[in-house]
């Protein structure tokens, strides 16, 4: 397990550098690394649309000739075929980046196991779909892929006749083979849709498509590639000649030269070992039982039935149920209840609850207030001090230190779980300003933290930052873990603004908990 943790750390370090660099070039909104999963869906849609067009011209009776005709004679055929192929290739790249990110961030175990396993099934299915697609062309690459695949399948005791015999040249390749291949190539994408649904079934509001600019930008580049560097036809398959040199698609045929010199048994053993190792990642990437963060819970005495945590939960782990305990006059008819099996302990519900009655143990709003009280008592922020509330997983990686460029650092597990009363407390306790640095919205490990935080601070989303808090002394910023320079810039800009304000008086005595407590009658109103 130490090796796994080390691999995760190493990958995170590489990704941190790559993220920071891409953010600088494209901005976090259009960083393709953040949108890798959604890009896969967008690219598969391109593959689907172009595939439907190509299907009209493909003939199972003359596979190579019909593809050659598509390439040379059909209107837009060469371009559509190129886009079909390039989008399939880009989908593999995006899927691998997506899987790597989730592995590095440890987001593959517990309630996320279903998404991890179904994601791998998706990737495998995409490979199979690509394999059948290249066999359809029946050029040299198609022949080599068909024979290599048949060689592997023939060791399985499930076929009445060795598949390899189809390609010995004893008789023409039967049309039934190309029909079955075409059927698989069409049927598999239908199955893909089902697996995509399964893949996102445990998250609320899944982002299935990337931002429009990024999506059209990527598609535009692939269109340009297919126009200026169209795919070429390899030589036709010939079972009576050794395979001639031909262009190969290494995104789908990478395994052919690896498997060719090895015995089928060894290839199967390696394939199964890799499949098992990746499928079982949820087992060996999960922390030890004692280190696993506990699921959220609801203090039903405080729950007003407002449904805000139910709406904000990024994992649909909270449901509203009929109140059976603490039934008294003025109490809500329903209360929130957490499904521990679906909760990833992100704590976002803690930030969504005005009366501070929900959240992971030790991280509810009330726990956060206790912690910030201790922080203020120990660090005593003054009128000229800025307190940076930094997300552990991003924020330029500054959350590990006690101070940063003269500002006091107050780390939180996720900026989206921050209860706004903590910001209020820091300001009323005398801090000159509070800079909350979250991860970029698309890189939030808990999916929607920065989005909800921004709405609570500026748009009166429930558990909002009270109106009495001077917004000029609060600033929200995004920074990936490798963007320390971005935090410095934000801090300097914030300090410049604060310097123009009069010093805010420190309040001698106040009780935010009491002030934030909402009477059930008031909440019901």
């Amino acid at each position, binding site marked *: 397990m130490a090796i796994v943790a080390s691999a995760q750390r190493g990958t995170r370090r590489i990704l941190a550098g790559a993220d920071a660099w891409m953010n600088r070039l494209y901005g976090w909104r259009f960083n393709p690394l953040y949108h890798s999963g959604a890009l896969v869906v967008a690219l598969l849609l391109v593959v689907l649309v172009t595939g439907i067009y190509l299907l009209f011209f493909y003939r199972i009776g003359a596979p190579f000739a019909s593809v050659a005709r598509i390439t040379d004679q059909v209107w837009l055929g060469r371009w559509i075929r190129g886009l079909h192929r390039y989008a399939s290739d880009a989908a593999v790249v995006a899927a691998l980046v997506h899987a790597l990110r989730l592995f590095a961030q440890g987001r593959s175990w517990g309630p996320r196991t279903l998404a991890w396993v179904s994601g791998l099934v998706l990737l495998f299915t995409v490979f199979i779909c690509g394999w059948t697609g290249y066999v359809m062309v029946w050029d040299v690459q198609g022949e080599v892929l068909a024979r290599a695949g048949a060689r592997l399948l023939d060791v399985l005791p499930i076929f009445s006749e*060795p598949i390899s015999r189809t390609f010995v040249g004893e008789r023409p390749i039967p049309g039934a083979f190309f029909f079955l291949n075409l059927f698989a190539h069409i049927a598999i994408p239908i199955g893909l849709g089902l697996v995509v649904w399964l893949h996102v079934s445990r998250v609320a509001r899944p982002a299935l498509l990337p931002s429009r600019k990024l999506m059209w*930008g990527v598609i535009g*580049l*692939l269109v340009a590639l297919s126009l200026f560097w169209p795919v070429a036809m390899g030589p036709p398959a010939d079972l*009576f000649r050794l395979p001639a*040199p031909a*262009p190969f*698609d290494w995104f789908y045929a990478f395994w052919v030269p690896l498997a060719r010199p090895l015995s089928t048994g060894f290839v199967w053993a390696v394939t199964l070992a890799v499949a098992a190792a990746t499928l079982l990642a949820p087992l060996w990437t999960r922390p030890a039982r004692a280190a696993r963060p506990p699921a959220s819970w609801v203090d039903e005495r405080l729950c007003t039935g407002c449904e805000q945590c139910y709406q904000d939960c990024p994992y649909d782990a909270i449901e509203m149920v009929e109140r059976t305990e603490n039934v008294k006059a003025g109490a809500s008819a329903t209360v929130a209840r957490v499904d521990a099996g679906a909760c990833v302990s992100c704590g976002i519900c803690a930030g969504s609850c005005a009366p501070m009655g929900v959240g992971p143990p030790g991280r509810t709003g009330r726990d956060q207030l206790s912690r910030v009280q201790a922080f203020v008592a120990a660090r005593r922020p003054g009128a000229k001090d800025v307190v940076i509330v930094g997300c552990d997983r991003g924020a330029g990686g500054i959350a590990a230190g006690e101070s940063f460029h003269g500002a006091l650092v107050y780390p939180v597990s996720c900026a989206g779980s921050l209860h706004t009363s903590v910001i209020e407390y820091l300001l009323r306790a005398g801090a000159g300003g509070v800079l909350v640095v979250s991860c970029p919205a698309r890189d939030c490990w808990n999916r929607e933290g920065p989005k909800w935080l921004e709405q609570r601070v500026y748009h009166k989303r429930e558990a909002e930052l009270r109106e009495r808090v001077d917004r000029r002394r609060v600033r929200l910023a995004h920074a990936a873990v490798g963007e320390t320079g971005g935090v410095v810039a934000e801090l300097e800009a914030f300090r410049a603004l604060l310097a123009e304000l009069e010093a805010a008086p420190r309040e001698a005595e106040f009780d935010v908990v009491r002030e934030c407590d909402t009477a059930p009658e008031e909440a019901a109103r």
Partner: protein
Amino acid sequence: MTPLARRTTAIALALGSTLAIGALSRAPYTADRAAHGVVRLAWRARGERVEECRRLTPEELERLPAHMRQEESCEGRVLPYRLQLSIDGARVVDELVQAAGARHDRPLYVYRELTLQPGAHAIAVVFAREGAIPPGEREASEGTPPRLALDTTVALLSRRVLLVTYDDDARRLVLRDGSP
């Protein structure tokens, strides 16, 4: 980094990544670079099916559903064949070919490929039934002839494949080179 430099780098990276996808999508590969030729032995043969039969006892019949009561029960299998290949007088293949299937009751499949230097070669293939029908068993169907043989000289070209296969209609081994 100036805004212009940043924009230029961003465009260059996007174009570079796109070109990399294009390049990896078409990188040339030769699955077999050698100049040799290949002799491929590949055929499917219906072997001699033999059966061992016995009569079921009344008790055994009683236990079966009425529509499945047949007085005789037969276990069938296909007799193995021995495949021998000699090239230029040297024996390069000598192996027993069992019929496919867990009970060896499926057809016999032969699929072997041998690489040879281009040029003229004397090829002798023998595919002969191994052993006789054991006592107590009986021949159930006539399949491939008990002995098939091909003895010929071929001119093998570089990077070409010669196929030795079984012609079901002519009931003999034949040589094919892909020409119509």
